[in-house]
């Protein structure tokens, strides 16, 4: 008998009383101003959200925030300041020197400021290896909570997707918060 068959048989044999699946109808939190809530929580995570104004140019706005960035990775057509297209990279290791990556998020969540970023690029490592990360998010796509987020999650048949909330961080040394452990040292969400 295979280990799988043995394990499943054992599990079956050991289950005594079966419990029903509950109806998941959480009376979950709603926010009068989801954008304000999203912004305020993102700030507590060490990130920042700004709204692109009608008279503002997206590329100029990003450039103004990251004046020093030289190697900029993005596969988004509207990002003209990109210097590297991660879809045209043969080896993800070559993306190590990226200063800034710009990706698209699909859902923002007001309760915890996370943004759903499905892997719509060949090398997802840009989301983590870049020194700084920018996520573009349509402000109409901010939902109240994770229940709403998962209810409308689109995986796009991708290999991977991630909710990102703020920059990478750690508190492993004496519980002192340090932003920028392995991944991005800063996160800017541009609400468009």
């Amino acid at each position, binding site marked *: 008998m295979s*280990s*799988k068959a*043995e*394990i*499943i048989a*054992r*599990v*079956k044999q*050991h*289950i*005594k*009383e*079966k*419990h029903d*699946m*509950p109806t*998941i109808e*959480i*009376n*979950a*939190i709603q926010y009068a101003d989801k954008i304000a809530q999203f912004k305020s929580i993102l700030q507590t995570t060490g990130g920042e959200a700004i709204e692109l104004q009608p008279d503002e140019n997206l590329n100029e706005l990003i450039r103004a925030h990251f004046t020093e960035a030289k190697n900029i990775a993005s596969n988004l057509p509207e990002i003209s300041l990109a210097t590297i297209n991660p879809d045209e990279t043969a080896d*993800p290791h070559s993306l190590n020197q990226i200063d800034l990556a710009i990706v698209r998020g699909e859902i923002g969540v007001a*309760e*915890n*400021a996370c943004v759903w970023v499905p892997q719509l690029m*060949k*090398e997802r*490592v840009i*989301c*983590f*290896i870049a020194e700084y990360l920018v996520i573009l998010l349509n402000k109409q796509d901010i939902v109240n*909570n*994770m*229940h709403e987020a*998962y*209810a409308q999650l689109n*995986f796009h048949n991708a*290999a*991977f*997707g*991630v*909710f*990102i*909330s*703020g920059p*990478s*961080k*750690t*508190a*492993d*040394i*004496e*519980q*002192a918060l*340090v932003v*920028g*452990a*392995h*991944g*991005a040292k800063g996160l800017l969400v541009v609400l468009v």
Partner: protein
Amino acid sequence: MSTKHTKAADRFIANKAQETWHNQTLHFVRDKRDKVAMQLPEWEELRDTAHQIKMHTITHLDQYLEEFSTQAEANGVRVHWAKDAEEHNRIVYTILHSHHVKKLVKSKSMLTEECHLNPYLIERGIQVVESDLGERILQLMDQAPSHIVMPAIHLKRQEVGKLFEEKLQTEKDNSDPTYLTRAARAHLREEFLTADAAMTGANFGVAATGDIVVCTNEGNADMGTSLSPLHIVSMGMEKLVPDLKSLAVFTRLLARSATGQPVTAYTSHYRKPREGGEMHLVIVDNGRSDTLANSEHIQTLKCIRCGACMNTCPVYRRSGGYSYTYFIPGPIGINLGMLRSPEEYSDNVSACSLCYSCNNVCPVKIDLADQIYRWRQKLDSFGKADPMKKIMSVGMEFMFKRPTLFRAGLKMAPMLNYMPRPFVYNGLNDWGKGRELPRFASSSFASLWQKGKVTGAKQKHTDHE
């Protein structure tokens, strides 16, 4: 009367400054947890639902395991099954060996600690690099985690500074956490870039989609798995949830309970192998199927390893993770250790004042304290009961079963006022360590009653009649 926990706790408390820091720091995490929990009016509803989802899932685990593995295989993930730690380690090694892996980067996984995977791989010539900062610090020190979420919480920054001076050539006497973290970032970046394979644990497995969900703050799991062509996931089989709708409940509870954050920085869903790469999943039993049959302890299978029970536990906070003999400390660790081997891990059962705070913080409502109470009832049958406690319990029963003897004892007691109340009289020295003994009253309540000296305020009494 003392257990290994008692003795280790003595040593921990002897360093008062360290104990105070440890206690306060972990209580601060509990405070943060309280704050975010109180911000959600539906908090208790979430806990209750999470409990029910987990009870349902583990009592239908055969079906969900089939669904999950079928789905994962359809996604191109290669699924392996391990009955025990040995089989798990063998599977992982075989995969690594067949891919000629020299260096493996790992993100945090308590399951691989449970299986003692690292020494197994290192003995066989594979370089294993822990990538979570806390885990890496401990690996460089050759220590084990003292907390399941904050593995290096027992260390002071100066100790990390010293370690990094030696291992990572950082500046002498610089123990600034930001400086040290940056040094670790640079060091581990090199390791990520040169690793041949990446390994992660799993916070959740989603049966309906085959997703492996990993939650980190550092992004180390993602860094490793996004660079390497080979990703191995090690997952305890109780980690399943039915679907994404269920998962939503747990993603709301996990980080809030663990660290007081509304969510971890990264909630990563691994569904398929990287393009041109391979993803392997090892589903591990290692005693979990036995727990399923144990109605008194089945609820441990609901655990999502958030560590909230440690942060609130007044004993854990004041005795530290290393005072426990099982690799998982605190209330959940006491219970998991007993399920692993009651003969080997019974020393931890004393580490509980039955305050029940753990039950209340647990995001999936595990009856942690009740289970510890139940283990205590069984210690005698394992030959692990404290003989002094047994003598005292037998003595108390003898006296309390005899009301006349009890009352005679009450009468005698004041003459022996250097003794504590009857049922602790054998434990004089241990009580006396940091406390004065209570003094017996010159007349007990029973004798006052017998003498008619217990009276009401007659006048007012009459008013009421």
